[in-house]
């Protein structure tokens, strides 16, 4: 890099010859201690943030999608089910918040499926780090996306006339419960992302699971109006527990049993799908 022509080429294409003093930049001595499991996971979450920075279009699903869901269901069912959209919104908003975020969790699987096909995962898996950290970090990054979706829905709800009885603390607690559950729930899709061959099949299978789970619940209507066999399903549907818990937190009327069941189901989902995901990941 002594001549001006090289410097010019560097400006033009960034493709300059390799410096002669390459030997000097080779690190000597002991490499640093590998990072802890937590700090490696956070570093991978940072990678997810960088990807959003470079490809901001991927925020479409956490901004436009929740807006459409909220508007659509409020005005579609509001008049029929509660007399007016404003009144229905008081019941619907916590439900549509949960439903939207639950739907968005499937993009975790889709994104992972695309990501893991790339060669960079070979490098990640040869690093001396806690192996699950690449996936844990990706899911933490997605939890940030879920928070953004939650903020969008709650702001829109407030603008449309939703008034949470639980106040600021209730809203924060409700969103917190939702994020905890979504973190656990995402591992179903990470497993699918590793099991299935293409992004399309991940989408298809996730939609098949998510639609019944979110519609056959207390998201839109009180389950007491349903036939008893369907009530039986709603009683064991983890999404229904989550909706009841979030609805309670937002309204300021805590539903302790639903909250407990939500934590139990989140724990069970994580305990089953976390290890299964890692098994698949290690085998890839």
């Amino acid at each position: 890099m002594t001549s001006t022509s090289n410097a010019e080429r560097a400006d033009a294409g960034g493709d300059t010859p390799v410096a002669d003093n390459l030997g000097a930049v080779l690190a000597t001595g002991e490499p640093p201690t590998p990072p802890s499991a937590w700090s490696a996971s956070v570093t991978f979450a940072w990678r997810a943030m960088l990807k959003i920075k470079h490809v901001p279009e991927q925020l479409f699903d956490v901004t436009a999608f929740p807006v459409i869901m909220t508007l659509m269901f409020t005005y579609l069912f509001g008049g029929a089910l509660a007399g007016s959209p404003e009144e229905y919104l008081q019941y619907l908003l916590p439900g549509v918040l949960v439903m939207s975020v639950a739907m968005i969790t499937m993009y975790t699987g889709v994104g992972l499926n695309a990501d893991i096909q790339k060669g960079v995962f070979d490098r990640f898996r040869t690093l001396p780090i806690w192996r699950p950290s690449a996936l844990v970090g990706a899911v933490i990054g997605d939890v940030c996306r879920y928070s953004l979706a939650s903020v969008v829905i709650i702001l829109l709800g407030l603008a449309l006339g939703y008034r949470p009885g639980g106040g600021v603390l209730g809203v924060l607690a409700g969103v917190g419960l939702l994020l905890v559950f979504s973190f656990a729930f995402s591992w179903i899709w990470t497993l699918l992302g590793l099991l299935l061959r293409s992004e399309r099949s991940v989408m298809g299978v996730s939609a098949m699971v998510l639609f019944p789970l979110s519609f056959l619940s207390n998201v839109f209507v009180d389950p007491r109006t349903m036939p008893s066999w369907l009530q039986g399903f709603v009683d064991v549907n983890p999404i229904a527990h989550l909706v009841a818990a979030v609805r309670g937190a937002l309204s300021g009327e805590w539903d302790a049993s639903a909250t407990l069941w939500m934590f139990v189901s989140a724990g069970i989902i994580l305990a089953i799908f976390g290890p299964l995901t890692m098994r698949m990941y290690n085998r890839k």
Partner: protein
Amino acid sequence: MTASSAPAIETSGLVKVFGATRAVDGIDLTVPEAAVYGILGPNGAGKTTFVRMLATLLRPDGGHGTVFGRDIVGEAALVRKQVSLTGQYASIDEDLTGTENLVLLGRLLGHGKSAAQRRAGELLDAFGLAAAADRQVKHYSGGMRRRIDIAASIISTPRLLFLDEPTTGLDPRSRNQVWDIVRVIVAQGTTVLLTTQYLDEADHLAGRIAVIDHGTVIAEGTPGELKASVGAGSVRVRLRSGEQRVQAERVLAAELGTEVQFDADPVALTARIAGGESGRGAAEHASRALARLAQDGITVDDFSLGQPSLDEVFLALTDRKGNRA
């Protein structure tokens, strides 16, 4: 079994099966430390599968292997501390910039934030990528991608570096840059396991070569030994006058007992030398043949002795194997 006295790589009977295909079918190999070891073979020979097992990315279905004395299955975490992998397909995040990639990997290797940033800057400078540091890697040229990929592998100097077909698809200038980089890295004491389907690449870089086909090692040795084992060399003669070419052909054919070809150059001809046991035998044959030309009054302006190319070695070895099968 201390880690320091063990060879860089030792495998015995390593097997990997994918469905009905035995991708790696019993490889025994010992790779000494601090040199370039070449794995040479055509597409689908099992080179990448072999490397992926050693890099702890795939679990062997049979046999075992060690890296600096550490078992690649039982002590995978210890193996990972000593190796870096530059895969056949860019092992770098194409959505991120050059700097972001190196900082990310620096952090994952345990560097602090500022140390990782400093290290990224040093490497980008040294690899001639400073001007492209803030561009996404997907906009890099093929040669630049390879360089950032290798730079990512030496953020911390590994004891063993896997380079899986590092120059496939590169133009000659970029290929030479990669070769220069590999030489510098090895000069600092790192062992490099290089897979390639380019015979001249193995010839230029590797101290020892294993030739792999259908998942097994079909030959192993220094480039010179491999050539000598095939035994063929050639002598190329340039005559003063093209009129003596037919006469020279007869003399050489009689003396060497092999086929003689006229070159495109009207005063030149090339004769193969039949299989001697070593390179010196070939030289003796050639000098005797040259003496005969002089006795017969044929004036030789120039001559050169050609070793068999690795291409010939490879074709000879795979043919032999093909005939046996």
